[in-house]
């Protein structure tokens, strides 16, 4: 039976669902990557995803356009992230606490906001109609390829965007002037200041981008994956994204790979829920355990790289 289970991993339907499940995690994780490159820690991704998910649906409903809905979600994500940035950079709140505050806001504040805007309680019910969902694309040539076609074609626009963004973010970080500045600010803020780059401006941009990406993740959840918004739909993906980034060493490609790993674990869990004899709960544990193990391995590898000496306190550099 385990053998059957293992074989079914290679089922094209299964792989299709892995990609689908990975996408929202990947969005948020890429957000964490950009923030981290600028030396900023945004742990409010979970809350941002929840709130943007809600607003994605609302904006979509009000304008009857899924595109505006998605854009709205992104805008809200940016705003929330900038709020965290404001409290961290100007008001000197610990940025971690700022992230926690947004997570709190996301938990129940969303239910409240939903009610405030629509009078509905807890979920969006039938607000999200077929037309409002993010459309899927059947890629012309690829869809005809046996097996691969079933895995790769037919995903939503946003799914493809998520994986495309891996490459795009990589380009931004490593090939653009903004990326150079971001990395300078993240590694040596003094270097940036000494040539006239405003550290704070760059950090605002970075955290804003992370909010935008988390917003995309939220929109993905409510306007495609769950076909509507309900409280508890994000279920910790924002935190898993943090772990994926840590395991991916803060690099876009590595983060994609670890996000896929988590996607795989979650897809397994869904598949196994219905099965006899295998506890879906225990399978659910896998992604989180894998994170911890991954973090441990990562930390060990860093320790080996560092020399044993304490760093010189002051002096020549």
């Amino acid at each position, binding site marked *: 039976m385990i053998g059957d289970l293992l074989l079914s991993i290679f089922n094209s339907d299964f792989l299709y669902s892995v990609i689908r499940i990975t996408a929202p995690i990947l969005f948020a994780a890429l957000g964490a990557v950009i923030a981290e490159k600028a030396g900023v820690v945004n742990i409010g991704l979970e809350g941002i995803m929840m709130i943007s998910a809600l607003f994605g649906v609302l904006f979509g409903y009000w304008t009857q356009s899924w595109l505006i809905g998605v854009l709205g979600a992104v805008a809200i994500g940016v705003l929330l992230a900038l709020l965290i940035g404001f409290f961290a950079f100007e008001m000197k709140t610990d940025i971690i606490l700022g992230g926690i505050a947004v997570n709190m806001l996301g938990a129940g504040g969303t239910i409240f906001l939903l009610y405030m805007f629509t009078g509905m309680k807890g979920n969006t019910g039938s607000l999200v109609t077929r037309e409002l969902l993010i459309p899927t694309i059947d890629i012309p040539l690829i869809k005809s390829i046996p097996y691969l076609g079933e895995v790769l074609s037919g995903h939503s626009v946003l799914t493809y965007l998520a994986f495309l963004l891996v490459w795009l973010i990589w*380009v931004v970080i490593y*090939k*653009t*002037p903004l*990326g*150079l*500045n971001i*990395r*300078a600010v993240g*590694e*040596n803020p*003094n*270097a*940036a*200041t*000494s*040539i*006239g*780059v405003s550290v704070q401006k760059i950090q605002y941009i970075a955290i804003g981008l992370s909010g935008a990406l988390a917003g995309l993740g939220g929109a993905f959840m409510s306007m495609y994956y769950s076909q509507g918004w309900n409280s508890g739909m994000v279920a910790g993906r924002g935190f898993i994204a943090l772990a994926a980034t840590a395991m991916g060493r803060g690099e876009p490609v590595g983060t994609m790979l670890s996000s896929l790993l988590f996607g795989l674990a979650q897809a397994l869990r869904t598949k196994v829920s219905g099965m006899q004899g295998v506890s879906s709960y225990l399978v659910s544990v896998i992604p989180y355990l894998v994170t911890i193990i991954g973090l441990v391995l990562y930390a060990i590898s860093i320790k080996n790289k560092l*020399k*044993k*000496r*304490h760093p*010189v*306190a*002051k*002096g*020549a*550099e």
Partner: protein
Amino acid sequence: MEQEFIVEQNEIEEQEDFVVQMRGVSKVYPNGIAANKDVDFFLRRGEIHAIMGENGAGKSTLMKILFGLEQPTSGEILINGQAVAITSPNKAISLGIGMVHQHFMLVPSLTVAENIVLGMAPTDKSRLLVDYKKAVQIAEENAARYNLRIDPNAKVMDIPVGMKQKVEILKALVRGAKILILDEPTAVLTTQETSELFKELIALKEQGFTIVFISHKLKEIKQITDRLTIMRSGRSMGVYNTADITEKEISRLMVGRDVVLKVVKDKSQPTDTVLKVRDLEYTNRWNKKMLDKLSFSVRKGEILGIAGVEGNGQRELVEMLFNLNTPDAGTITVCGESIINLSQDKIRNRGVSLVPEDRMTYGIADIASIEENVISDRFSSKRFNKGPLFNMREIHHESQNLIVDYRILAKSPKQQVKMLSGGNIQKVVVARELSSKPTLLIADQPTRGIDVGATEFIRNEIVEMSRDGTAVLLVSADLNEVIELSDSLIVMYGGKIVAYFEDSSQLDDLTMGEYMLGLKHQTEEEIAKVSYD
């Protein structure tokens, strides 16, 4: 007749091509410390000009003012004859001034080319992406033009220090600097790298650049500079043609005390050896040998001072004495037992106390109270604990006593330490470290940056401890302190001991200067005496 003469002088001055003129520049910090006092500094176009002085002489501050990192309290600056207000580094860069700092401002994971064009990176046709080829081209062209060998594609974290410095220089040149300020550039270089740097600087000079070179290394200054300005205690001691002044004269002007503050003390009567440092070696991560077979001893009842300009290995030595760093070779023993790699609590248990140079990082917990700070090395002892709980009465007692004994000016023991003045903060540290009645006391710059009253008090306390039997190792860049407070002293230069004086009270500034600046070197036998073997 006289008037004509004066007029002639002025005309001569005006005809001089001064690219930079700093007149009457003073810098006084809010806490009252005057880093620069009415300094005149004139820089001729196309010369290599050194600013010399000990640590704390004010040379770095003066140049930071020129580069817009600090604002003068008074005085004026003229660039090419025009009065300017240099309000920020950007302004300085726009005026053609570039600065290479002591601590490099580079981004480790970026390549050399990327670091050079940071903030002004060339973009390709799309205007979105960095034109990396162009950046490399800019780097290579400039490197070739100024004869600074670099590898544009190497990541900064992988290149040696010498190349890092070239990158910093190129950064300044690429931004249009015509005046280059180099802050202690050879502090981090090996001999090989130093001579390479000098070749490059001379080449730059020939291309018309003006270079200011902050340093305290006599031999180097003599090698490549045209003129030099000597600073001491925030004042300028004059500007001289390098060729016309001897090393001895420079030393005399650089190293000297305006006021000699005598410390009254009985002659020391040292007994057993407490600290033994033997053949200590250490090469830092940039391959510079900071400690070279260092050997000395400190005995009970004496104060051994370590004199020397900062950067000659004193920092590394003190770190190793308290397990903040590990030597490559050699031994350190206290009362016969090694303390290398021993945890700090065990080191303290052996009777060693340290008054650290960086009191804010190591010496205190700033938002904790005076009371909490002053018991941090003894809080778990039986005396202060009654069962699971603190014996608050004993703790209050202890902190009150220490506050009184060490004259800590504060409203109450509950006050946060960060609210105290610098001198009082240091007194908190001293109170704790001295009151534990250590066998060995290491005092690292114990009176730096604090007021006269606290300074005098702390020095007297150290003398008293020594006469009561503690072995004291005093590391100080303050000449007064190290000569007057020590009973005997050694001079460190280049990671080695170059002199040992059994009786420091007879020392004169001139002699000290010569040893401190590497002009003189005692014989092996004379130095070996400090090992008391």
